[in-house]
């Protein structure tokens, strides 16, 4: 039984080491040429895109809040927004409109 236990332990260790090496190499690929390519692209276009969506479907705010900082899908045609809008489902990012205090009170 001890020999089998040793083999099982070696297998578990091997699996853990493989996962650790895979994570290490993945981190390296993000640091090198790949990051440089993203920088070149973003520098040239002046910063484009920020959310978990490839094109500005439905509204711009969840594609890039710098382009359109207002969430216009909240106001039409269903107040409160579409519950099934792609930006409101299971994506990994969601950018909210920042409310501004624009109420100016004039004394009578």
């Amino acid at each position, binding site marked *: *039984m001890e020999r*089998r*236990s040793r083999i*099982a*332990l070696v297998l*578990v260790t091997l*699996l*853990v080491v*493989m*996962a*650790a090496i*895979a*994570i290490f190499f*993945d*981190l390296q690929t*993000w640091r090198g040429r*790949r*990051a440089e*390519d*993203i*920088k*070149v*692209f*973003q*520098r*040239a*276009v*002046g*910063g*484009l*895109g*920020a*959310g*978990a*969506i*490839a*094109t*500005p*479907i439905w509204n711009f705010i*969840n*594609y*890039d*809040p*710098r*382009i*359109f*900082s*207002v969430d*216009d899908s909240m106001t039409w045609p269903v107040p409160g927004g579409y519950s099934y809008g*792609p*930006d409101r*489902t*299971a*994506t*990994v*990012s*969601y*950018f*909210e409109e*920042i409310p501004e205090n624009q109420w100016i009170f004039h004394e009578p």
Partner: protein
Amino acid sequence: MDLPRTLIIKNLLFAACGDLIRHRGRSFVVTLCLVAILFPLVTALAISEGLRFQAEISIGEGADFYVSEDRYGGNGPISLDHQSGLSGLQGVSRVTPRVVGRAYFADRLTAVVGLEPEALSALKTLVQGKVPEAPGEVLLGQGIARAFKIQVGMPFSLGANPHKTFKVTGILSHSCLWSSDLMVMSHSDANEFFIIRGLSTQLLIYTPNDSSPLLAKSLIGRSDPGGSQVPHLRIEDRYHTKERVQAGFSHKGGIFIILYIIVATLAIQAFLITSGFGLRVMEREIGVMKAIGWRTSEMLGEIGMECLLISLTAISSAILLSMALTKGLNGILIAQFFVAEVGLVPEVEIPSRYLPFHGLLGLALAFCITLSGGLWSAWRKAQRPPAELMR
């Protein structure tokens, strides 16, 4: 006689391993269940981190300020007349106009970007072909080019303005999510395509780092020109955008993790309770162990080791499987749950970045789930007499 601590741990480890092998069916099913639970969590975290990494570069390499005009309470195009005025402000090193719009390429929505000639030349290293130089020349993102089998030199026009004919001079190699479904052209071509004159979606302001706060004050001063005939300016600055994007990723990611942990914990408990998996065998084993002189703490230690070995196996397998799916198969079937509108077979490259933290979080979750399933019941059983347990 007390044994050295390392020897105790080693013995417990071997005993745990022996137990797992003896009940290989149970060990296999529990590990498989854990892999099924951890796999979506690890994948979601990796995709979220990949996108966050790309978004941070987008903000870091972008302009310091984005200026547009306020139109009906939203961002509207800004007159190019503002360019010279803004360039003259103290601390401004460069002001460039940029058009960002959207148009359908056949039935697929793409972002249309119009840039100044210098910005177009900066894309040279990323282009297969050449960057646009003459009017009507465009670059296409790889996603669009692949989907419609577009070659360099191909002329085309789009439904939004059928009179404007374009010629593809190059294909943008993939760098990030937002470079895939994209058409890049000169600023004047973009305005001609959208039939707009003298305007731009935004003016991009670049500053040397130290003058940003000072410039922010000057810009805020200009945002309200005071007269009722001139529209207000809307200004987005790098600092606030960064804050908003980070919050957007953390908020959604945090909610996802919390909900996921609750659902996963409930699911595994329900699984253990409804199946009664291995309870009788466990009772008998604990009885035998107590009868031959094992202490309760040693028994709990052995069960802890079993849980640790299962958790290590499960999280490592989940990470390797997730990597194979996201990197080898580009997140086929699963990517659409995390990146909106990419479909079952994504044509854009899905970014995923695995961090050691993801592994540790998954390990902690798996360890807690397995421990909560085994430790409490083992401790309760260890309080009963061995004869009763072995019956």
